[in-house]
């Protein structure tokens, strides 16, 4: 039972990251009816931007010293005689990194928002009113451009990036077994859940959100009701790239940085299809389910199976409900 809880918690933590990635795909789909195959690569860009602003920039000779490692006197003093794995030590290590973490997150969010806007303005907007299929194909083309572009821009080998939160180990007892997890993973989950919740609330309760929903249902009608459809497109893409930047930063701290980060987009696309392309709630359930299933498979059958079993489940769900768990019936299948 205790083991079970441990793996369930691990699963929920990766599920939350999937949900954060999925939110970008769903938002763009809702607003523009485009299934963004390149979303994973937008996330990869977010990860590289985080790396740029949290590692490369602070390492430059012109960067102030406190940016790379903030070591005020009181911190050095406090750190003096702490043991290897003391929680306070982990927090102090994190504090020393905090300036570059914040710069990294801010830089990643802004830079990715610019990338999202450029994609929307130069590739998507001119195709407005054309067949949606053409736009989807453009996102497929984007995959090559973005993965090639990333390798041109960031030639350095994958490097260590700082965790977003103090990575102190947390141990507690549940059902008679010790549960063990890392603080950073826990905080990542909280960040992902808060962002997800915030976006759902935005779409449900604000004027801009209503504009997105109306556009999702019928573009030309929304346009003639006085809703600026191009603005809705832009908002959706910016939303996707900003959440993608945070997701990218989190993935970079967990999995390291490489162009293959983009592949994450495809696994999450399967999750999105399972939940229903246009349903935040359905996609949330699907993300958590796949996350937990993955962890359980890893526990019972080993790592090799963990890559297969959850996606077989996705397949089964799609055969049973072709529009996903909570997708709308009229939703186009791809």
């Amino acid at each position, binding site marked *: 039972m205790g083991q079970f809880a441990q793996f369930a918690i691990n699963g929920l933590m990766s599920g939350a990251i999937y949900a954060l990635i999925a939110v970008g795909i769903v938002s763009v789909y809702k607003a523009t009816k485009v299934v963004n195959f390149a979303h994973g690569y937008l996330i990869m860009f977010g990860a590289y931007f985080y790396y740029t602003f949290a590692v490369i920039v602070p390492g430059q000779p012109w960067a102030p010293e406190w940016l790379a490692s903030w070591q005020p006197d009181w911190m050095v003093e406090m750190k003096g005689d702490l043991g290897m794995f003391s929680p306070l030590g982990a927090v102090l290590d994190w504090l020393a990194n905090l300036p570059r973490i914040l710069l990294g997150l801010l830089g990643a969010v802004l830079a990715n928002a610019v990338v999202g806007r450029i994609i929307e303005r130069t590739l998507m907007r001119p195709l407005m009113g054309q067949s949606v299929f053409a736009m989807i194909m453009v996102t497929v083309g984007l995959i090559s451009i973005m993965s090639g572009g990333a390798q041109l821009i960031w030639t350095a080998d994958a490097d260590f990036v700082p965790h977003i939160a103090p990575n102190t180990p947390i141990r507690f007892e549940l059902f008679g077994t010790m549960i063990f997890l890392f603080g950073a993973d826990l905080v990542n989950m909280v960040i992902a859940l808060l962002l997800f919740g915030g976006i759902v609330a935005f779409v449900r309760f604000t004027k801009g959100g209503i504009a997105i*929903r109306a556009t999702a249902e019928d573009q030309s009608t929304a346009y*003639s009701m006085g*809703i600026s459809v191009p603005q809705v497109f832009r908002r959706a893409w910016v939303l996707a790239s900003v959440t993608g930047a945070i997701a990218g930063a989190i993935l970079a701290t967990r999995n390291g940085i490489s162009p293959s980060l983009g592949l994450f987009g495809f696994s999450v696309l399967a999750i999105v299809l399972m939940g229903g392309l246009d349903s935040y709630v359905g996609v949330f359930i699907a993300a958590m389910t796949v996350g937990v299933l993955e962890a359980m498979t890893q526990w019972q059958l080993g790592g090799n199976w963990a890559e297969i079993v959850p996606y077989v489940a996705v397949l089964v769900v799609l055969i049973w409900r072709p529009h996903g768990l909570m997708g709308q019936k009229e939703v186009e299948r791809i």
Partner: protein
Amino acid sequence: MLKIENLHLSFGGIKALQGVNFEARKGEITGVIGPNGAGKTSLFNAISGFYTPDQGRVYFEGRDITDLSPDKRAALGLARTFQNIALFRGMTVLDNIKLGGHSRLKTNVWQALRYFGAAQKEELELRREIEERVIDFLEIDHIRKYPITMLPYGLQKRVELGRALAMRPKVLLLDEPVAGMNREETADMARFILDVQEQFGTTILLVEHDMHMVMDICSHIVVLNFGQQIASGTPVEVSKNPDVIEAYLGATA
């Protein structure tokens, strides 16, 4: 009020509109008729901003709006309904109608957070106005909470009219408001259109196939055939025009 000047529109080799000229006068109902494929819906799309004409201008209250996007035209007071019902199917009747008032709400999120009272007041005002001006007016009080998909066709058309009214339009474009309706539903709709004109003084431009209705409620009629304007005038003038009779009934010897 709404003036169309020498409008030309073509899609590749197909000339959808070739020199359409007329004016929808303030507070009157103007009808556009013509056989299938005459260019009526193209004309509507050019007026509401979905198509850009190759040549010619569209004036709204004397202002040239030919280059404005659809949402800007809507903000000026130009509302339309669609030939195929274009309601938001996932929403209730009330939500659909309130969406018509969407573009008139001024408060954004930040203002709403800071001045919650003002935002609430604006929302309540919109709501009251919708109650009186749209829901009671169109006699759809009993179905306000229903999802759109549960309603019969005739009522859906009425809700669509309601949503357009919530935009408080100066000019209302109705694309086949009674298409596919039985006689009773047609009579109801005709009555509502006349009421809108009378009570709110809205300028109305409508496209319709139902000759009886058009002749009954319009004060001015424009006839299109293969993209060309073949007649324009009062219902009596138009119905006596030999070109119109030929277009509708074929040449008579």
